[in-house]
């Protein structure tokens, strides 16, 4: 009896242990196996056959739950569409869960995130990696890598969407990809720029990345540059809102550590800083805050001077030209504000309606009427006033809008003094400047440097302009090609202007 009792006891212990193991094994099983769709236009079929009816079409990067396996097919459930079906096994990528799956997911993410066209799959892998990584690792370099990958892919996808697709099937794929990205939490903003709409990444991953101490300098620089893109700013914003946004952009760029940054990234950062500080300088000058405008303009000029053109990539050259145009347009804000003494002087006065009037005055005539006067809604850079040796012409820089600086020419004629305006180019105002490069002795000609980026065109010219008609008599793409530019250039222009960069 005693032996029987022992046997029964042992059996009971074994049964309890088995039950415990079975429960623990059940608890260790993943709740649901998840797979990512690795190709575009994958058909979800009603049965595990190629000839079966198509339920819907899945796109690269979509997430489905694996329910069962039937030969080469996998039975899946699409939670987004609330529809089940069969998909070929070769078109799916099983995603593991838990910490042990994180290295594989990170490796896959590192590869896929560099493949153009696979942005949605990369975003899905990043989402899986975030789920797999433990909390501490998410705050470390691995987390920074994932966020960086999300930001880069979202930017690339937005760029693809903004460029559009030529073929109809590509357009459908693009729309589907944007939809898949939105499902992964990546949102885009539509920026109306003239007649076209640009898609821009909202920047959540970039902002999170900038807040992480573990992010590398390059990652921070990339995030800061992505968040401060000029073409993703709201063009309909009011001047005050735009200034506040520019201020925030400048602060964001200042946060990036540059000591450990590679030279080309430093150049990109400086280029963007020059662009942003130029905008700020103009906004402050238009508000009437000359001191703040001066500091901003100085920051812009210092930033553009830090750029080493040899370090710039081909893609960055256009941005550098834009930044240089902007910085050169506001370079008079960094000046002393006092025009050099001459036979004639130009004074400015503010009207109640917001206009600024520039008056040409002869100091030798006491309490005399201005020789000529013209008003502008823009910013009149009084420090730029220059009078030729003969005293029959004067030039003044006036900037009506951000990044577009005109040259006003006061000219003495038989009927009196006249004021004519020389824009940077005969194009719709964009970015550009027209500036005095020197006076040609004789009082009939002047040297003008003009550069503009507008209507999709880039213009850079050095001209010998006839004062009477303001028409160029001789034009060259480089100043060395024109003799007057070698003989009579203004020393201050040669020293300060970015036209000779």
């Amino acid at each position, binding site marked *: 009896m005693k032996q029987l009792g022992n046997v029964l006891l042992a059996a009971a212990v074994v049964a309890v242990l088995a039950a415990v193991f079975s429960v623990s094994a059940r608890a260790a099983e993943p709740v649901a196996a998840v797979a990512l769709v690795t190709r575009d236009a994958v058909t979800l079929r009603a049965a595990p056959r190629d000839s079966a009816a198509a339920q819907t079409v899945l796109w690269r990067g979509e997430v489905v739950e694996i329910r069962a396996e039937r030969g080469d097919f996998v039975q899946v459930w699409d939670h987004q569409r609330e529809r089940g079906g069969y998909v070929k096994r070769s078109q799916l990528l099983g995603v593991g869960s838990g910490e042990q799956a994180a290295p594989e997911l990170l490796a896959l993410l590192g590869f896929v995130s560099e493949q153009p066209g696979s942005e949605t799959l990369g975003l899905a892998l990043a989402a899986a990696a975030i789920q797999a990584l433990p909390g501490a690792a998410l705050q470390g370099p691995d987390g920074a890598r994932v966020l960086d990958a999300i930001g880069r892919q979202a930017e690339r996808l937005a760029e693809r969407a903004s460029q559009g697709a030529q073929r109809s099937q590509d357009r459908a794929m693009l729309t589907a990809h944007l939809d898949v990205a939105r499902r992964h939490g990546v949102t885009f903003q539509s920026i109306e720029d003239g007649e076209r709409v640009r898609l821009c990444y909202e920047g959540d991953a970039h902002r999170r990345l900038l807040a992480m101490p573990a992010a590398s300098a390059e990652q921070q620089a990339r995030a800061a540059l992505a968040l401060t893109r000029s073409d993703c700013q709201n063009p309909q914003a009011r*001047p005050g809102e735009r200034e506040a946004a520019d201020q925030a952009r400048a602060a964001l760029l200042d946060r990036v550590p540059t000591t450990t940054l590679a030279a080309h990234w430093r150049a990109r950062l400086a280029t963007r800083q020059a662009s942003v500080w130029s905008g700020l300088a103009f906004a402050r000058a238009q508000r009437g805050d000359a001191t703040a405008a001066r500091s901003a303009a100085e920051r812009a000029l210092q930033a553009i001077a830090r750029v080493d053109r040899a370090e710039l990539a081909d893609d960055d050259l256009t941005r550098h030209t834009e930044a240089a145009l902007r910085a050169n347009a506001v370079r008079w804000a960094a000046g002393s504000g006092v025009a050099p003494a001459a036979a004639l002087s130009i004074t400015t006065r503010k009207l109640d309606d*917001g206009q600024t009037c520039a008056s040409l005055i002869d100091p030798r005539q006491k309490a005399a009427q201005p020789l000529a006067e013209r008003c502008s*809604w*823009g910013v009149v850079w009084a420090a730029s006033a220059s009078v030729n040796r003969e005293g029959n012409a004067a030039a003044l820089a006036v900037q*009506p809008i951000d990044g577009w600086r005109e040259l006003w020419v006061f000219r003495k004629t038989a009927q009196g003094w006249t004021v004519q305006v020389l*824009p940077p180019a005969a194009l719709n*105002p964009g970015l550009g400047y027209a500036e005095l490069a020197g006076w040609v002795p004789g009082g009939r000609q002047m040297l003008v440097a003009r550069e503009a980026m507008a209507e999709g065109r880039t213009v850079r010219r050095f001209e010998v302009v006839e004062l009477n008609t303001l028409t160029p008599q001789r034009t060259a793409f480089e100043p060395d090609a024109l003799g007057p530019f070698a003989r009579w250039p203004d020393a201050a222009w040669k020293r300060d202007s970015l036209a000779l960069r």
Partner: protein
Amino acid sequence: MLLRLKSLTRSVRIALARLVRRAAPGAASGDDASAVRPLRAMPSVSLRPILLTLGVTAAALGAGYVIVKHPPVQQLAPGHLALRTNQLTGDTTVWRSGPVWALPGLYQVTRYPLQDQTWHAASMASADGPSPAQSVEGLSIGLDLSVRYAIDPARLTAAKAASLPERLVTQIVEPAVQATVYKIIARHTVREIFSSQRAQIEQEIEGQIRTKLAADGLLLRSIHIGKIDLPEDYRRGMEVLLTEGLSAEKMRYTLELREKQVKESELTASAEKARREIAAEAAGREQVIAAKAQEEAMKHVLPFKQRQIEQRKLEAEANRVSRVQQAEGEAQARRIEAAGEAEARQKLADAEAYRLTRVGKANAEQMAAEGALITKHPLLIQKTMADRLSDKVQVIIASPSQGGFIGNNLLGSVARAQTASTEVDTDNTEQ
């Protein structure tokens, strides 16, 4: 004065009586001494010097004691006032500082402190105490009352000083307080005393006591009424009442606070509205200025665009004229070329026709000559064929047939031509 004179007369009379009594015992005591003297024979020792010495010593000691106990010069401590009264004449002198000569028996010196004194009305402190105040309802009320007073040196004349009692508290302050407080408290209800008119009552009491004390040369510094002790039952009901009153007051104040908060919110909202309006106006103005600046920049560009367009038009016109002229020139050149070409072709055709005629004639003449030659030498045909085939055919094996020549089939045309030429020759001959 009369009282003093009386007391002086009385003291003189008493002194004279003492002198008379001192002279009389000589006779009386003489009888006693004679009765006693025979009993004891004492040696004759003179006691007079001893007694004199003892008397002088006693007198000196007594004088010293008197001087020590009643010094003729008294020091006046700072902050005190001395009142010296001549006992003979009744003159009063007020001393404020320094030593005061006060011969004992002649002068009487009374000191008064000039510092602030405080008196606490202990007897009326409790409602159950010996002398509580009575309210208008007849309820006993205890007042914890303290009086702070001082002698007013400015108003203390010699005459007034003479009338100052030694115990100011009991003889001036306390009666003045009681006469004032009981009277004032008796005009008010407990509620007024306890809460609503406490300050006014305190002020009234203070005013009246001040007046009364000032009449006696005292200066009232302050009066403080602390705890007011009510009968227990009344206190309980009063506290409930007061609590309710306080609640009502609190509600009133709460409502006032709310009203003020509402007003503050209104003002804040108005200020915010004004600020926003100003900000919106400024932003709108900035927007307008920016738009006008944009328009201005566009305006400045337009003439140059117009000039550019005109220039392009002129260039296009010049180009058109140039191309038209070029086309006209080309057309004319082509016409000339075509005419020349036609003429050239005509010439070429004529030349060709002439050449054909000439070639035909030459051919005919050659054929006629060949025909004549073949007719004259028939084997010439075989020879010619053999010459032509000599480098193409190495061995030709064929049976001679019908005339024996292998190239008959090939030469059929030649034969036919020969026949034809023969016929032509015949025709020509016939013609």
